[in-house]
């Protein structure tokens, strides 16, 4: 086993948590991610495997909040699958074997920073950073949108005051700064 120590997207050795009145912004460093794109002509088979994996095929704009693997729709015939890193470090390889020639699988773990934003003022914060109709979103809604000029996925989790934001990892610092200043403004 190798001895290389990973860093979190914010550049720390442990995930960062910031708390405000009615808002908590927590860096989530525990996700393994891989994208799955159906091969042309194998869409049905790919859907079948997805259903087996997640219990359902995530529809456009939706996520399937399933354990241990969860997934959301990225684009036509393309999904992002996520799972806990400690148990699924090699998620991409596993999925590659699972889907075989019915899908193209690409490791995405390193590409994203993930923040869990929770608290009563979460909707107010969202209204200051992105154009999503946050108060109309239901659990399992997963939309890609712009936050501080960055293309981010925003997923409404089970709890009504909880969203998960996936943003481009290299800009984790800028995205974090945006969320923090917005939290200050609404908290």
């Amino acid at each position, binding site marked *: 086993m190798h001895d290389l120590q990973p860093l979190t997207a914010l550049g720390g050795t442990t995930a960062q948590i910031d708390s405000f009145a009615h808002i908590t912004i927590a860096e989530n460093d525990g996700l393994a991610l891989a994208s799955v794109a159906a091969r042309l002509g194998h869409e049905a088979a790919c859907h079948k495997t997805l259903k087996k994996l997640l219990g359902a095929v995530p529809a*456009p*704009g939706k996520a399937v909040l399933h354990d241990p693997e969860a997934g959301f*729709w*990225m*684009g*036509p015939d393309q999904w992002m699958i996520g799972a806990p890193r400690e148990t699924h470090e090699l998620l991409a390889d596993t999925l590659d074997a699972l889907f075989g020639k019915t899908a193209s699988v690409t490791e995405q773990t390193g590409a994203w920073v993930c923040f869990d934003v929770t608290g009563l003022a979460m909707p107010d914060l969202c209204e200051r950073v992105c*154009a999503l109709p946050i108060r109309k979103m239901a659990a399992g809604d997963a*939309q*890609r*949108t*712009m936050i501080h000029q960055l*293309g981010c996925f925003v997923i409404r989790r089970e709890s009504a005051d909880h969203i998960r934001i996936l943003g481009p990892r290299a800009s984790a610092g800028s995205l974090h700064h945006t969320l923090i200043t917005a939290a200050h403004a609404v908290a």
Partner: protein
Amino acid sequence: MIIDHPLLGPRDAAEFTYMGDAKLIDRPDWQSDTAAQDFYEYGYLRDNPAGWHEELWFHEAGDRSWLVVTRNTVTHEISKVELARDVARAKGRSK
């Protein structure tokens, strides 16, 4: 502006990147005798109508779909939005 994405519903046009006339889907045949002329017209001449215009928008900050949007260039009204891939297939494009 708001573009009613066929899969995702209404989205702010700010999430999209604009390219131009959807006729850019009709890429000429490189082996035709008139290829040189065809590619010149394909590459450079535009109808540029004052009125309804079928045009290509890329959902850059969204699902990365290319869309064909039918929009009125005088009023900005949008009457139809389709996935460009479907339009391309309907126009007979394949491999």
